């Protein structure tokens, strides 16, 4: 009897070790990639790198200031459009589940989420860039469309998790519907909605394909949103494929910055959900 229990114990220990080993193997690529980018990129980053535009080809030095400013502007503009629309749509979907409109718009959101970013780029290219020329705005529009489904779904999911009793509590106090939404439902789901927003920003900030067709890229520091504008992923794309080693270094530095950005956004999300989590 004891011997059999011993065998069983050994088996379960073996199985456990195997699972731990697999979990480790899965995280290995991530760790390698991260370490490599940090190794290649961290050397490039200094104040000069952050505040100067790229040097002309073949010259040493130069920075990514144009891409930083460009990325912030483009992402900022797309957030401005996508966040309010996304939240409102999310509220609608969570408040009216089961209606026809909610069903079809939910379906559209899912399809939109599945559309490859390059396709999004080409659509915007033909609609906006063709008639009006390359511009940061057209890039923002493409990114905003990519952001929308994430914001909508995360808002909807967050609000669906709120117990219906919360809404009833407010209604039973004679609070009108719009105030129930604005003063009770949204504040209670705030942490979830905010983390959805941050995640969606983290997702689109590294998006390259739609920007190829739209914001195009530029070697100069520009804040003119109707003209072409550089962005981080686009800069990485162009410089990584160039033949000059100096430009490769620039691309590594930019990758590092982008990576840090996404990492920080993710950590902030985790902190927000933990700190502001509302105990129901």
């Amino acid at each position, binding site marked *: 009897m004891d011997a059999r229990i011993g065998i069983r114990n050994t088996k379960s220990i073996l199985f456990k070790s195997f699972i731990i080993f697999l979990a480790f193997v899965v995280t290995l690529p991530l760790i390698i990639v991260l370490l490599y980018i940090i190794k290649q990129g961290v050397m490039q980053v200094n104040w000069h790198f952050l505040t100067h535009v790229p040097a002309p080809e073949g010259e040493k030095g130069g920075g990514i200031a144009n891409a930083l400013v460009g990325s912030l502007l483009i992402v900022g503009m797309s957030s401005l459009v996508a966040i309010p629309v996304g939240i409102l749509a999310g509220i609608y979907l969570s408040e009216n589940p*089961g209606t026809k409109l909610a069903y079809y718009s939910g379906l559209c959101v899912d399809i939109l989420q599945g559309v490859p970013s390059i396709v999004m780029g080409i659509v915007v290219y033909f609609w906006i860039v063709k008639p009006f020329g390359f511009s940061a705005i057209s890039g923002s529009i493409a990114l905003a469309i990519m952001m929308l489904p994430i914001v909508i779904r995360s808002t909807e999911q967050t609000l669906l998790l709120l*117990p219906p*009793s*919360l809404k*009833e*509590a*407010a*209604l*039973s*106090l*004679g*609070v*009108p519907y719009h*105030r*129930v939404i604005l*003063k*009770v439902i949204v*504040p*209670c789901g*705030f942490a979830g909605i905010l983390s959805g927003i941050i995640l969606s920003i983290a997702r689109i900030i590294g998006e390259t394909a739609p920007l190829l067709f739209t914001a195009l890229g530029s070697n100069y520091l520009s804040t003119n949103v109707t003209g072409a504008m550089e962005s981080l992923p686009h800069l990485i794309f162009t410089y990584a494929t160039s033949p000059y080693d100096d430009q490769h270094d620039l691309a590594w530095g930019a990758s590092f910055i982008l990576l840090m950005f996404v990492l920080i956004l993710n950590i902030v999300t985790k902190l927000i959900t933990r700190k502001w989590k*509302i*105990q*129901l």
Partner: protein
Amino acid sequence: MENTVVSATNFNAWFGDNHVVKDVTINIEKNQCVAVMGPSGCGKTTFLRCINRMHELIPGATAKGSMKLYSDEIYTMNPIYVRYKIGMVFQRPNPFPNLSIYDNVIAGYKLNGLKVPKADLDNIVQKSLTSAALWNEVKDSLHKKGTFLSGGQQQRLCIARAIAMEPEVILFDEPTSALDPISTSSVEQLFHELKEKYTLIIVTHNMQQAARVSDKTAFFYVGELVEFDDTKQMFTAPSDVRTQNYITGRFS
């Protein structure tokens, strides 16, 4: 009859095609504690939610017949006004998780954007929490979140929130079914004090609770009001055989 606060006459309610409240006629008098009991799905909760017009918020829900608060027809009044006058406490304690205890009590004013001077608000908070027998327990932590309280305290907070609006009637939808026995008895104790000032209508699954706390008891069965009488009468000598079967647990 002059004392009647809430009266329903030939009142009916539906969920879609499902006729859940059938031709109910009942008069509820002032400062009484009325228990509404009956097996699950007998329409008692629906009837309760018809009184402050929460029923109609559910898609497909309809109601017909006369329901009066004093002499005013509830179904021609503004539902928001109805809910000021008829407060409600739910099955599970549902304080607003984003608000402090203080703000939870005055939620009715705050969420409606009613402007009330701070001193008055302090007063309302203290009075309501005292009436809900919660003041002594929370007076030092008024600005903590309401959800930090225990289940029974949360439920009393919800009662304080309803009291703060100075309603005429307070509806309770199985107010203790999610509470432990100690919290349950503290809430039950409260009913005896509350009926001095308000009219209470309590839906309950728990017959003993109906017996302990109420002056009058209504027994609902498959949407009908079978019997409505003094609780003492109901529990010693009910006049309808269905009531007798239900309270003795001989229901088939």
